[in-house]
């Protein structure tokens, strides 16, 4: 356990150095959030129909999303890709660690460090100036922290899975190209999920994508009430365990047939 933690924290601290890149990204995210807020503002100002969320909730949801944007970038670890291409992945197999958790620790750092770097300044700015509100209640804030940690874990498991799939495809073409589009839309990044038609809701609720954005955000704004927390967090946990089990099964198949490139 300590070894995995050391791998995680070394990589995490390494990635925290890229502060300038995160700040450069902040401007883009500000712009994107502003457009969304203005579009929603215009809809709310001109329509009499009942909306599934209040405008204040939508604004908070949008800014929460802009801060967590890195949770949606599901790609394999570039270092692992490089190792598989050059054949140095063989060294990974000689380490006295389980390969899955070794790669998972690295993915977890790849996911959390950029997210922290972007979320902290984004939320400070949005809370102070841009109409983002504090959590619906103290308990909701606590539940949001738990749900966000789960979202990061699930994302790390997804990224690990993509890394493992490189054992077969090397170039990372195919599904990994189409996946981001689905993730973007089905997680609530484009518009909050409650705005999709009612008949689509059961499908959206069952899929894993809402666990990244929609679940923590709706807990934060109080749209998912305390009585539903257990179900929402359970959905996240179930998918996380599922993806981890799938990853472990795939990696055991992959290492059995792995051909080391290079001589």
């Amino acid at each position, binding site marked *: 356990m300590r070894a995995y933690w050391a791998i995680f924290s070394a990589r995490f601290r390494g990635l925290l150095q890229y502060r300038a890149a995160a700040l*450069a990204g902040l401007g883009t995210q500000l712009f*994107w959030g502003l457009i969304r807020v203005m579009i929603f503002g*215009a809809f709310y100002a001109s329509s009499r*129909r009942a909306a599934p969320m209040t405008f204040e909730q939508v604004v908070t949801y949008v800014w929460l999303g802009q801060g967590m944007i890195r949770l949606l970038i599901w790609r394999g670890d570039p270092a692992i890709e490089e190792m598989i291409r050059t054949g140095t992945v063989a060294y990974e197999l000689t380490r006295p660690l389980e390969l899955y958790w070794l790669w998972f620790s690295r993915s977890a750092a790849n996911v959390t460090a950029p997210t922290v770097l972007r979320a902290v300044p984004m939320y400070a700015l949005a809370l102070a100036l841009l109409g983002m509100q504090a959590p619906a209640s103290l308990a909701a804030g606590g539940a949001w922290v738990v749900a966000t940690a789960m979202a990061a874990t699930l994302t790390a498991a997804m990224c690990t899975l993509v890394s493992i799939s490189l054992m077969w495809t090397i170039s990372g073409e195919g599904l990994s*190209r189409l996946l981001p589009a689905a993730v973007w*839309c089905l997680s609530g990044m484009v518009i909050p999920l409650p705005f*999709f038609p009612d008949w689509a809701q059961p499908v959206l609720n069952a899929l894993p994508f809402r666990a990244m954005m929609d679940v923590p955000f709706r807990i934060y704004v109080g749209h998912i009430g305390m009585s539903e927390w257990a179900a929402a967090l359970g959905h996240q946990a179930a998918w996380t365990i599922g993806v981890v089990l799938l990853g472990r099964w795939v990696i055991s198949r992959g290492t059995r047939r792995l051909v080391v490139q290079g001589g």
Partner: protein
Amino acid sequence: MRDAVRLYLHCISASIRSQMQYRLSFVFQTAAQFVVCGIDFLAMWALFDRFGSLRGWHLPEVALFYGMVHTSFALADAPSRGFDIFSGMVRRGDFDRLLLRPRSTAFQLAAHALDLRRIGRFSQGLAVLIYAICALEIDFTPGKVALLAFAMAGTACLFYGLIVLQATAAFWTVETLEIMNTVTYGGTETGSYPLSIYHDWFRRFFTFVVPLACVNYYPALAILGRAEAGGFAAAFGWFSPAVGLLFLLASLRAWRFGVRHYRSTGS
């Protein structure tokens, strides 16, 4: 001139042939772009499904804005790959090589590649545009068809100019200015809705600094036969797309200025 066109076509056909070497990858990437852009429109549709209308605008009208700006952006994005990768050339000192060749640098970068994957975005925008034209009960006179083409050409010029400016900045910053994506990709997002729904300062920015309104909003108003309260006269939209062309010419002037101030980073 004829010689330049022949050379350009020669370069582009080489670029197309090289992209066709990885056919499956090409198909996947194009399909992915079609889906990504389609999702944008899906979200727009969902919002109109929930709210009914937006400040008096309905989905087919807004779809016209959306279709115009997305197809035009794809038209500008496909042949500007060279400017996209320019900052890398500066960093590695590769730009020096371009300076030695007997053609202008802007020409060489423009001829660098024609990115066919942008067909994904283009065809998605075109599908939305066709939907808008069918759903709108407008008499499309030859004049209006010509205006539509003029506006799309103007928008494409504007976006190409913005991409050139983004590359020009790299003469000084060496890195790509990510913030410029807010006026290219962000401009596409902005132009997908009528500009009148945004805040005043935002509208002014996209009228006077980045003249997106001139190439997208006002011509679309003219096509729809709507007038803007307190804005320019309705006739303005028939001429305003020319501003896009002027913007491109100004960007190329800025580019030449940048080339004169280029100092190699290479060793």
